[in-house]
């Protein structure tokens, strides 16, 4: 009885009792959601262009952040470190294409997926071998002060993170829609063979996509790293991004954004209002359950391409 009350009545009383706090919870959730969206974005880019479900995206975030911090510790200024890290991520893209993907063309999706898990193991060992495995603080001078807006408290850091995410998404959208490479990318995503036959170089496309995913990983790494330090657990946010992916659809950039926001808000509300009723620490699985319920109604996610099966 008490459990039912705690589960069905008390949370709504709390919400009605303090609407400002509820707004704060929603906004915090939205800002966390932006972070999830950023990770999911990296997945979507690679999946769209090469049908590779890149499990290593989370490790790429860690690797990019580690490289950035490592360079800064060696005395490089922020702008130089960022540029060098982008170069490193591009080099990684070239290596992945040349050493791994090229040899796995035409393999089934699960083989490619397992190969990216292998890549994740490699990158984890490599990153920590080069830069060490202790927790590092990442400070690139983003102010973190509480802001008050009509009685609602927010952190300026979260706002800047959200803005960065928005800018990144707009830039990616422009890149995909307006540039020649972007059009080629979409062609490859639609049909590998048709794209090859009209003379689009698959190799360049894959390198570009993995590099762009590397840049997205770097931005994500900066945001998460500045918030919670650069350490191994950073790579686990990949697991957070997976429910975002199935919610938004594997192939949709807007889906990744909106999916991330839904998961962020849902998770925060559930943890704060329903967490106490069922024992807390539910953020590990809540997103998955939410996504699974969505899937039962829309098997291709919110914005995924409609699955039309032909025989």
């Amino acid at each position, binding site marked *: 009885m008490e459990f039912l009350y705690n589960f069905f009545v008390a949370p709504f009383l709390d919400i009605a009792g303090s609407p400002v706090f509820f707004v704060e919870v929603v906004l915090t959730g939205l800002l966390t959601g932006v972070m999830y969206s950023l990770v999911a974005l990296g997945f979507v880019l690679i999946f769209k262009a090469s049908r590779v479900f890149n499990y290593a995206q989370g490790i790429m975030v860690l690797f990019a952040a580690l490289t950035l911090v490592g360079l800064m510790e060696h005395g490089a200024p922020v702008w130089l470190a960022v540029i060098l890290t982008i170069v490193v991520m591009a080099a990684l893209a070239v290596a992945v294409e040349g050493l791994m993907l090229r040899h796995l063309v035409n393999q089934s999706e699960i083989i490619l997926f397992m*190969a990216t898990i292998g890549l994740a193991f490699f990158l984890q*060992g490599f990153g920590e071998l080069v830069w060490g495995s202790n927790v590092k603080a990442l400070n690139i001078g983003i102010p973190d002060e509480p802001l008050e807006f009509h009685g609602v408290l927010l952190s300026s850091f979260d706002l800047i993170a959200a803005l960065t995410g928005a800018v990144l998404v707009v830039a990616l959208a422009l890149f995909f829609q307006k540039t020649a490479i972007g059009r080629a990318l979409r062609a490859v995503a639609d049909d590998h063979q048709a794209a090859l036959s009209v003379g689009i170089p698959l190799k360049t496309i894959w390198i570009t996509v993995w590099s762009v995913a590397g840049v997205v990983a770097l931005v994500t790494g900066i945001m998460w790293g500045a918030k919670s330090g650069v350490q191994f657990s950073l790579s686990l946010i990949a697991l957070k991004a997976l429910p975002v992916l199935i919610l938004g659809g594997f192939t949709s950039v807007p889906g990744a954004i909106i999916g991330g926001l839904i998961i962020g808000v849902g998770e925060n509300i559930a943890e704060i209002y329903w967490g106490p009723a069922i024992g807390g620490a539910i953020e590990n699985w809540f997103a998955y359950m939410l*996504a*699974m319920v969505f899937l039962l109604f829309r098997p291709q996610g919110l914005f995924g391409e409609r699955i039309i099966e032909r025989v």
Partner: protein
Amino acid sequence: MFYREAGQFKTTYSADQAIFPIRQDRWFIAAVLIVAYVVVPLLMRGREDYLYQAVLIPFLILALAAIGLNILTGYAGQLSLGTGAFMAVGAYAAYKLTTAFPDLNIIVVFLLAGLITAAVGLMFGLPSLRIKGFYLAVATLAAQFFIPWLFNKVAWFYNYAPSGTITVPPRDFLAWQVTGPAATAEVRYLVVLSILVVFALIAKNIVRGRIGRQWMAIRDMDIAAEIIGIRMLPNKLIAFAVSSFYCGIAGALYIFCYLGSAEPEAFDIILSFDVLFMVIIGGLGSILGSILGAGFITLLPIFLTNAPQILGFGIRADLQKHFEFMIFGSLIVVFLIIEPNGLARLWQIAKEKLRRWPFPY
């Protein structure tokens, strides 16, 4: 020269449909069993239990889990990342059963734990009727995160132990103590081995029978399978149930015969990935491959840990950990590039070569 089926005539249908229709294969299997049951225990008499405890027992248990996952992923084509969670269900079910009914035979406990896991697996298999591919894989991750959380939060599952861990009580089977701290490694090894042999045989028979063929049809093209009259609902659910049954028994053995005591964290996503690696490296859609893959993935880290000492150059422990990760990852990628069909395919190629040996063709 030695591996020829020439002159082996089959006069009955049952002889033609035997699991090992070629005489040399039967001898080989018999030899493997003799080695496993007689030679290994004799060699191990009077030595340390390291080989049992660190290599053989986890290898056999994970081979059972790999067979379970291979039934689901390799035969029925449903990708699952929740193996660890299903093993946890089996472990906790066995623990609850044996503490609630101490007189129940431990083998019966394992089987019942498998059945309970099958029921749970059935539940998490329901989404497979609507979704497939990676969407389904991520949905099974829901089980992977939800189930250990549940076992952590609800104290009933670990009998309100203050430490939050489950510790295996001592249980006997016939005259031998099978579980608990006093059980010898030899007995545990033989129990695990026997269970693996029996269930590998059962799995082999399931997958080459009617159900197995239906699974393979669904895996290869589900629409075509549906059109020729294979019913999706029962077949997919049976695949989830059978697979979870195997994983459940493997999970129960993992606690009862290997770890002795554990928390839900023992069944994390790393374990799920390890079992998936075994299935892929061993070969999708092959029972033998699951066992070979389990051997490969169990032995590789042990080899990598000990290789520097054996080769005679010592490196710092933390550096070595990083090198292990790098080498493990690259070996996986290299292996997938060289032989995407796994060890089972290599075994098949070796047999083909052996048939013609010493002639080139």
